[in-house]
């Protein structure tokens, strides 16, 4: 693992000790799907009240990482600790209590298709509190105003664009004021304007409300703009980590290939296969 934070000049982001200030800790986590090892001794810390980006190519297990933190998956070995609680060891009741304090923003938004925008945002409030209708109304409009969609409250999810759906999902994720939000590919498939809005919203939520943010993405430019700290994962482990500046200036081949989008490098362009010539000759035979 390349610890860029320790190798270069220390930026403001390295002023804190990650372990002491970590809201989420993964310690030596291993996880497999069938015979395929997704993580093999993965360790990382997510600092409180900061924006942390987890970068990695497709299929490197970024979404799996969020599912492990959210307790939707259990690791084969290792520890997943969120706010001092060992997630895999929690009972269902304890896990649900923890989840009330965290939000996961799915790539698709995962809005309930039979409810309109207002009811989607009100959903967690109605499920977990006994607030009066007028309070729910105020709370939902407040959150919809934050994401700029107060005027869209009557629309159904099918009437929303991809970017709008994600903003509604974001309003829903913050409606109970969680301590942490996990974003699964928040920039994927967005037009430049929606992308700008999403970047702005994540920044604002982090700075204004002090919400810890974990962004799983492969969009390097946006991640660099927004993240206080970055991890690059691949081959089941952390390849490198450091501040955005350190990642940008890294001389590591693996980091350079990802940050510059090089088609070939430590991550080979070709999927492992037999010798090309032998393969072609095999057809004739």
């Amino acid at each position, binding site marked *: 693992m390349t610890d860029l934070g320790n190798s270069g000049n220390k930026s403001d982001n390295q002023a804190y000790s990650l372990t002491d200030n970590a809201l989420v800790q993964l310690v030596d986590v291993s996880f497999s799907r069938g015979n395929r090892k997704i993580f093999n001794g993965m360790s990382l810390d997510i600092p409180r009240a900061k924006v942390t980006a987890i970068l990695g190519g497709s299929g490197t297990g970024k979404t799996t990482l969020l599912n492990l933190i*959210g307790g*939707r998956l259990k690791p084969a070995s290792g520890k997943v600790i969120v706010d001092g609680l060992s997630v895999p060891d929690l009972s*269902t009741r304890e896990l*649900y*209590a923890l*989840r*009330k304090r*965290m*939000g*996961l923003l*799915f790539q*698709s938004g*995962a*809005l*309930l*298709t039979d409810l309109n925008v207002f009811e989607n945002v009100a*959903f*967690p409030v109605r*499920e*977990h509190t006994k607030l009066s209708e007028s309070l729910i109304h105020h709370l939902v409009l407040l959150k919809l105003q934050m994401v700029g969609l107060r005027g869209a409250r009557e629309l159904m999810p099918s009437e929303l664009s991809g970017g709008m759906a994600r903003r509604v*999902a974001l309003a*829903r994720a913050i409606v109970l004021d969680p301590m942490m939000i996990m974003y699964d590919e928040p920039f994927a498939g967005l037009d430049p304007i929606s992308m700008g809005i999403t970047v702005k919203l994540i920044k604002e939520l982090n700075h204004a409300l002090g919400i810890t943010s974990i962004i799983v993405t492969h969009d390097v430019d946006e991640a660099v703009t927004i993240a206080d700290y970055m991890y690059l994962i691949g081959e089941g482990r952390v390849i490198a980590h450091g501040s955005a500046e350190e990642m940008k200036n890294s001389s590591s081949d693996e980091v350079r290939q990802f940050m510059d989008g090089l088609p070939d490098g430590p991550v080979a362009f070709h999927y492992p296969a037999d010798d090309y010539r032998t393969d072609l000759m095999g057809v004739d035979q």
Partner: protein
Amino acid sequence: MKFLIKFLLSLGEWGIARITRLGRGSQFLFETLTHVGQSLVRFRLVYHQIYSVGVLTLLIIMVSGLFVGMVLGLQGYYTLSDFGAESSLGLLVALSLTRELGPVVAALLFAGRAGSALTAEIGLMKATEQLAGMEMMAVNPLERVIAPRFLAGLISMPLLAAIFTALGVWGGHIVGVGLIGVDEGLFWSRMQGGVDFYDDILNGFIKSLVFGFIVTWIAVFEGYDCVPTSEGVSRATTRTVVNSSLAILGLDFILTSLMFGEI
């Protein structure tokens, strides 16, 4: 020999897969049943599902019931008139419907209309991460989505079977009395005299309750357990209709044997 071993291996794999799935389905049923109490407390959710599962199935049930009754009236009259027993037409129509056709045909139609819709809806909720989203919002999908639908199916099915039977009797009356000219007094009096509340109506009700339970269980389980892709949802929907229909017919034989038979 090699072929035989391969065959036995695949048979074993198939068997283990089926038993595993049955175990998963039973565990799912148990977990669902533990949440039924909460659904009763939040009956608004069940009420909405009764509309989707029951009310929207009403049209096909009513039309089918009416036509099945009309055909029974016609066929029954031709057969009974050979023995000069056409006055028992009302009894024949009523017994056929309350004991067998009402619960069975209504359940088959229920599986095709409501069961497939339930599976497709839950499967699509899974495919579009709505169920996962609920889990992450600390809302248990079994409590919020599955249990209300299960309860709605259980409540709707006997009511639909009763409506099917009532419409069938009316259809038999239209053909027998209205078109063919069987005496109306005899039609109703023989029916009243021959149909027993406990042996016929209550047993028919129990059948429809059992069918409602089994169809809704299969439908919600297939949706919840499906592979979250368009092909997976499509396969699950097909499985719901096929498995439910087979379960209805198989269980009907067992229940009939227990209720009316000497076996």
